[in-house]
């Protein structure tokens, strides 16, 4: 019985985190973006600085009509938002926030995370195809092309950390972490974060959803709650990517003075801020620039990091 209770409490905590943190990230994006562009952002909903704006948005989305186009493939169209969202919920189960504070400590946790995150992109491909809309189809194709080229640097950069720590378990990696890994794994960290941004299709890698040319790509035909689920998946993806970068490259719960989980939260939200900052600062990359960055930029850098990790690991024994 205690084990069942323990598992239930952990799952409930993860579900709460999954429901709350993406909304906080979304609100942060509203506000940070507004202030960077010298405006205020939402100010009325809920009173204090429009804190309830996203809840109001959610209520609005729920009331909207759920339109399925006549030319769409209904089953795949309905399934796609779930396929996009659920993987991020599943990934959160293995991300450690403090010593012992993790849903499940999987032996191959790192591979689990990378594998499951790849499935999320399938949702966007399914949405793109099943909408029966040429812009959506183009968006879906671009998603697929982007996933294929950015998965490689992502896995290579992550395996560099696994090599340094000598384990694939995420809590194990954080436990093995030392402060001097920051400069040692710096290249890998940048490659991982950039490739992760591209896998989430966040600006400047938002060619698949480019609203000014293919009108949100895979999401063109989605309305109401299904569209809201795609947005939730995007913000959950940002949280997962930031948490993973924090765990793998910034030492997770390590930090002076404050307790571990607080440090983890600080690192996650610092990275979320970077994600928003990058969105506001950089123009969208063209499709060929996008592919070139992956194959001629990130993959060689990731290989350099892998070699560097190997050399240092052998020298320090």
């Amino acid at each position: 019985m205690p084990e069942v209770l323990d598992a239930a409490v952990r799952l409930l905590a993860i579900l709460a985190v999954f429901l709350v943190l993406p909304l906080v990230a979304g609100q942060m994006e509203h506000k940070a973006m507004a202030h960077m562009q010298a405006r205020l952002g939402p100010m009325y909903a809920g009173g204090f600085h429009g804190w309830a704006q996203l809840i109001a948005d959610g209520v609005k989305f729920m009331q909207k009509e759920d339109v399925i186009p006549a030319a769409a493939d209904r089953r795949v169209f309905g399934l796609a938002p779930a396929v996009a969202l659920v993987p991020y919920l599943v990934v959160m189960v293995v991300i450690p926030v403090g010593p012992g504070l993790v849903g499940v400590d999987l032996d191959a946790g790192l591979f689990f995370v990378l594998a499951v995150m790849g499935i999320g992109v399938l949702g966007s491909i399914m949405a793109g195809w099943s909408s029966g809309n040429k812009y959506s189809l183009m968006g879906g194709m671009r998603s697929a092309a982007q996933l294929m080229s950015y998965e490689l640097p992502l896995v290579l950069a992550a395996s560099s950390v696994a090599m340094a720590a000598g384990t694939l378990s995420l809590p194990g990696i954080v436990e093995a972490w030392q402060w001097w890994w920051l400069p040692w794994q710096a290249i890998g960290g940048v490659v991982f974060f950039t490739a992760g941004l591209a896998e989430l299709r966040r600006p400047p890698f938002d060619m698949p959803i480019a609203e000014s040319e293919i009108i949100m790509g895979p999401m063109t035909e989605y309305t109401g709650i299904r569209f809201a689920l795609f947005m939730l998946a995007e913000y959950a993806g940002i949280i997962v990517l930031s948490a993973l970068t924090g765990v793998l490259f910034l030492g997770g719960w390590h930090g002076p003075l404050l307790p571990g989980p607080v440090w983890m939260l600080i690192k996650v939200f610092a990275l979320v801020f970077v994600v928003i900052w990058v969105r506001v600062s950089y123009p969208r990359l063209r499709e060929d620039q996008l592919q070139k960055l992956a194959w001629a930029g990130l993959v060689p850098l990731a290989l350099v990091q892998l070699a560097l990790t190997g050399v240092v690991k052998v020298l320090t024994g």
Partner: protein
Amino acid sequence: MTELVPSYASPTGQEIVFLLLGVMAVGSALLVVTTRQLVHAALWLVVCLGALAGCYLVLTAEFVAWVQVLIYVGAVVVLLLFGIMLTRAPIGRAADLDSGNRVVAAVVAIATAVVLVTVVVDGFRTAYAPLDPGAGSAKEIGATIFRNWVLPFEALSILLLAALIGAIVISRTDIRGRG
């Protein structure tokens, strides 16, 4: 492997889950080849490969299971979908999906299945492997590959390298054959 064979009359939870996953894998595999919609076939392939990864998990091969999801679901099927969408991806039934060779293909498939099943049943009739958690962990697999199976591993890497070079040569238009 030990010779101690437990009774098949009262299957354990693991065996039941394994059987269900097996049924799921075979069922979705049949749907892949019988469905009339091209993209649905690729999506059923996702279910099939996922169920196979589940089978690996039940057999405690955790690492292999996640690699299966990462490579096959995350890369191979996405590549397939990309190819389908790039060429033709009609919504709804397509009439020209059946190949003229389907009878021959079915015969070959059934013959292969019969050979494989007979060999496995014949070879491992009474063998029974206890499923201890941790036997398929990354550490165990790494140690086994690089201690006992280095030669096949290296042979495979040479094969992959050859395929890679071949792909580069074929895709580049500025390299000409000698003819």
